[in-house]
């Protein structure tokens, strides 16, 4: 049985007829040569018959064989002998996915980071495979997709994905491996020993309109998580956010937003939100250029785009000609939310009343967007248990030639070298046949001459 690396090249096999075509064409375009007498040359009638008959069939066959073998060599034949198949069955192509998320850098109960243990494990896994690659990713599903893509083009061998991670609960599940080919084995190696319990602070929450600002303390122990709220002092509660106009409706708006658990603002990054086109507040406006303002607006725009997808409003990027960058437009293309800078303050102009739902959305979203959400997920100490991981893993299947990805054949070692050697042999024979013809004519001539 033969497999082909570039089977499309076999379409070029008709090129083996090229010597015959050249043979015929050369006969039709024979050079005209004066000759003293044609009395010993066969007549033109019989020559016409010889047009279709090769003068040296063996030479023609050798030339056709040389071309055919060259085409076959270019197609990359792979002879599927028992020895070769046994070797493939013994070999493994392994893609090692190493978790590179923040949780891997947390010092565990044994005083060692999972990252270091993962590196050692990755080296060991790579050494025991014939073909291997290491993929580091802070997103395991994405890393597994890359591993599957690499395995699809790996040389013929048993295929396996090895995932080395601390496997935090919520960071990995069966969906991550759902698209991996069923013949590809999956092994999940859990590294690191998490601490048994930990305590950490959550983001402060907004206060106002009679509600106090709150701080959060998160306690983790095993699979349980507890949150304790504490009242904030006044300046930490309200500093950094100013609503214009300042009236009872604004107070009510802050109360609503605070009750929704909105993150508290920062006095270092002040935000002014003016409603219903009240533009008299800002004295000197400029375009938004400060880093934190831009990051905040981009995150806010992500939120607004999700909203506008539902509301059917258009969203424009920052960068209009006026100081105001329009972030959200209504269905009539009129600006709903615009942003500008006034000194250290980020100024948002919201063209809706303060008692509207959209006003509450803008206040909540802009405060939530002000800083990146705390990556509390990476602090999770609860992990998938070994039974779950075992259930998700599976052994690599034996090689099935019929289902082998076509890209895998391209990486396999071929038997083209034998075909090229045959081509060279054929060319040598062709030269020898031509030399023999010339020599025989000379010998015959010499015999007559003597």
């Amino acid at each position, binding site marked *: 049985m033969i497999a082909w690396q570039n089977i499309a090249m076999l379409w070029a096999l008709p090129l083996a007829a090229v010597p015959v075509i050249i043979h015929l064409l050369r006969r039709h375009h024979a050079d005209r*040569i004066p000759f003293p007498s*044609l009395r*010993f040359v*066969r007549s*033109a009638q019989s020559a016409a018959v*010889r047009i279709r008959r090769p003068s040296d069939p063996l030479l023609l066959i050798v030339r056709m064989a040389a071309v055919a073998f060259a085409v076959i060599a270019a197609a990359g034949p792979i002879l599927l002998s028992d020895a070769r198949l046994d070797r493939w069955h013994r070999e493994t192509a392994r893609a090692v996915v190493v978790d590179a998320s923040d949780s891997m850098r947390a010092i565990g109960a044994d005083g060692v980071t999972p990252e270091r243990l993962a590196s050692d494990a990755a080296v060991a896994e790579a050494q025991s495979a014939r073909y291997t690659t290491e993929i580091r990713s802070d997103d395991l599903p994405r890393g597994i997709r890359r591993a599957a893509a690499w395995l699809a083009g790996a040389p013929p061998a048993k295929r396996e994905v090895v995932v080395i991670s601390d496997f935090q609960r919520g960071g990995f599940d069966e969906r991550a491996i759902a698209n991996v080919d069923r013949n590809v084995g999956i092994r999940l190696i859990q590294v690191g020993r998490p601490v048994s319990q930990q305590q950490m602070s959550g983001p402060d929450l907004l206060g106002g309109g009679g509600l106090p600002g709150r701080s959060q303390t998160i306690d983790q122990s095993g699979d349980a998580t507890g949150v304790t709220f504490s009242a904030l002092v006044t300046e930490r509660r309200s500093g950094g956010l100013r609503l214009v106009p300042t009236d009872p409706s604004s107070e009510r708006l802050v109360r609503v937003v605070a009750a929704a658990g909105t993150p508290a603002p920062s006095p270092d990054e002040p935000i002014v939100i003016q409603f219903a086109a009240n533009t008299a507040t800002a004295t000197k406006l400029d375009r938004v250029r400060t880093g934190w303002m831009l990051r905040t607006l981009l995150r806010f725009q992500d939120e607004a785009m999700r909203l506008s997808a539902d509301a059917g409003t258009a969203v424009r990027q920052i960068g209009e000609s006026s100081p105001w960058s329009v972030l959200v437009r209504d269905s009539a293309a009129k600006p709903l939310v615009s942003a500008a800078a006034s000194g250290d303050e980020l100024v948002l102009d919201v063209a809706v009343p303060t008692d509207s739902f959209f006003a509450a959305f803008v206040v909540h979203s802009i405060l939530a967007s002000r800083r990146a959400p705390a990556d509390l997920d990476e602090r999770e100490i609860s992990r998938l248990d070994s039974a779950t991981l075992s259930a998700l893993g599976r052994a690599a299947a034996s090689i099935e030639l019929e289902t082998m990805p076509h890209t895998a054949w391209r990486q396999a070692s071929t038997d083209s070298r034998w075909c090229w050697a045959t081509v060279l042999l054929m060319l040598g024979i062709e030269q020898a046949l031509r030399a023999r013809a010339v020599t025989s004519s000379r010998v*015959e*001539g010499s015999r007559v001459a003597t």
Partner: protein
Amino acid sequence: MAPPSTLDPALLTAISDLELVARVTVDGTLSGLHTSPFHGYSAEFSQYRHYRPGDDLKYVDWKLYARTDRVYTKQYCETTNLGVQIIIDASRSMAFAGRNGVSKLQYARILAASLAHLTIGQGDASGVIVYDEAVRHYLPSRVGHAHLRRLLVALASMQAGGTTSSASALKRAIDLQSRRGLLVIISDLYDEDEGFERELRRAVRIGHDVAVFHVFTREELEFPYDRDVQLEDLESGQTILAGAATAAEYRREFADFVGRWRARCTSNRIDYTRIMTDEPLDAALRGYLLRRGGGTSS
């Protein structure tokens, strides 16, 4: 031992002075030969002279040697000359040149000039007939260097053209040759008809020495076309598609052709010499002269 041949035909044909070419060829040819192979008919005793190496022993006066213990040879007044008529085929087929660029006609021209130079140089008469389908040029056999010049001019000006009719040319030569002499025919002998052979036999029968120089190129002998070619007959203009497939048959038939001419000449006591245009001319001429001097023909 004969000296090595150095007279490359390609080199000789590059020399425009035909007299010089003929002299060089003859000098190279006679180097090492003992005597001239051409003998005039002599009758009247003239004088004695001391024997010199190379003199024919039949002219040694052995009685005088017995009396004086010295070797003398007898010399005679020539009363007649050997008449050599060179008959050259100048048909279109003779224009064919081999790889060395020397055509059969060029080769024949130098060969004829050399023979004429050799003949006239030793006091014999020489003439030339150039023919294709008819006799194009005729110079009767004469002696003297002035005649040699005319003969060389005639050879230098001959051009290949027309078809071959050797029989009529030979018949004309025999008719014009009033005395018995030597007829030298230089041709590729492609008009192998009965008339030509009949005239050859007639020439021998009436007492002429006849020598045939069969000139051809190595290409005609080996037919070295390993790819297909359209061969065009130089004389008839006919074309034939030929190639490697026809080569073996051609070679066999050409070998038979050469063999037939050799056998035909030998059986009629005609001196036959096969010459290829890439062979040194002096070597070809030397072979002929040696055979003639030894009284044998191949």
